[in-house]
């Protein structure tokens, strides 16, 4: 009772203290919910529905394409800073594995592309391979495969598509340099990869 009387007598300081407590409780709840939302985005943003095609053109070149969806079911906006599409062929021989790089597309123009909350963005890429040197490498691979009993054509080779996308969540601060603070960057960064038919 003594405390209550004291609070009544000093109502101004008591009211200020209670107002501060209410404000900071609200700020704590709001911040914790933001944190939950960020965690939700980190867990639910996925790459999906990848579709790969390889089409042999009449002039002997080959057209490769990849279509893939970036699904953002969270309420956070994704600011995409980079997306990278590569295609290669694994040439596995008795002396080891060599890679034949077929396509390498750093998609710089999509910088600052946004994917809103509850949205799906479809990335579509298509490249025609008409470089004689590269086509000759691929034919060499086809010939080698035929010699070990596996028949391929230019459009039936197992092209390994690799797609990576990096995005920042919302407008939350990032680019912390100090190594102790790097977890703050990791927290609001989304990095997804589609590689050889697997989503990571």
């Amino acid at each position, binding site marked *: 009772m003594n405390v209550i009387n004291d609070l009544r007598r000093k109502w101004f300081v008591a009211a200020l203290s209670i107002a501060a407590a209410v404000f900071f409780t609200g*700020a704590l709840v709001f*911040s914790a919910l933001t*944190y939950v939302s960020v*965690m939700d985005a980190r867990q639910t943003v996925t790459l999906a529905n990848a579709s790969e095609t390889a089409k042999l053109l009449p002039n002997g070149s080959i057209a490769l394409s990849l279509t893939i969806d970036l699904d953002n079911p969270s309420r956070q906006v994704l600011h995409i800073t980079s997306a990278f599409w590569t295609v290669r062929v694994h040439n596995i021989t008795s002396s080891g594995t060599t890679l034949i790089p077929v396509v390498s597309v750093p998609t710089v123009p999509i910088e600052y592309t946004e994917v809103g909350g509850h949205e799906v963005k479809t990335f579509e890429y298509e490249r025609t391979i008409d470089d004689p040197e590269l086509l000759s490498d691929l034919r060499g691979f086809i010939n080698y495969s035929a010699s070990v009993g596996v028949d391929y054509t230019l459009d039936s080779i197992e092209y390994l598509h690799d797609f990576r996308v990096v995005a920042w969540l919302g407008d*939350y601060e990032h680019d912390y340099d100090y190594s102790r603070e790097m*977890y*703050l960057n990791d927290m609001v960064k989304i990095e997804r990869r589609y590689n050889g038919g697997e989503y990571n």
Partner: protein
Amino acid sequence: MISAPPIAFMTFDFVFPNVSTPSLEKNLLVAFLLSALFGMPAGYFNRRTDLAIVTVLVYVSIGYVLALVAYSAPFLFYDFEVIFPGLYVMFFLNMTVIPMMLFTFGGIVGVILGQLLRESYESDETSQVFSRMRQ
């Protein structure tokens, strides 16, 4: 106990300054000044200094636990995966040990300031009563 939520918020903000609103941006001076400010009610409403200091220790502890609950909210109240399973609590403790000491120290400084304010308020009140009695 009204000082526990600010301590909880400042501790949470110290771990995740980029997602908290408003944010002190890990500014220890501001955190110290605010903790002194929020220590003042303990000194202002408690005549006994020892009790006021115990109050500081109690509200800092409660605030710290509340911050830990907020830090664990995605995993306690939602079905999210823990990011660093082994180091999950250790990470929080490691990040916030200096702010915790700062909040306690700031709270004790606030108690002293609160008691000085109370004394000044009471002496002013007494002098006003005496001046009224003389009239």
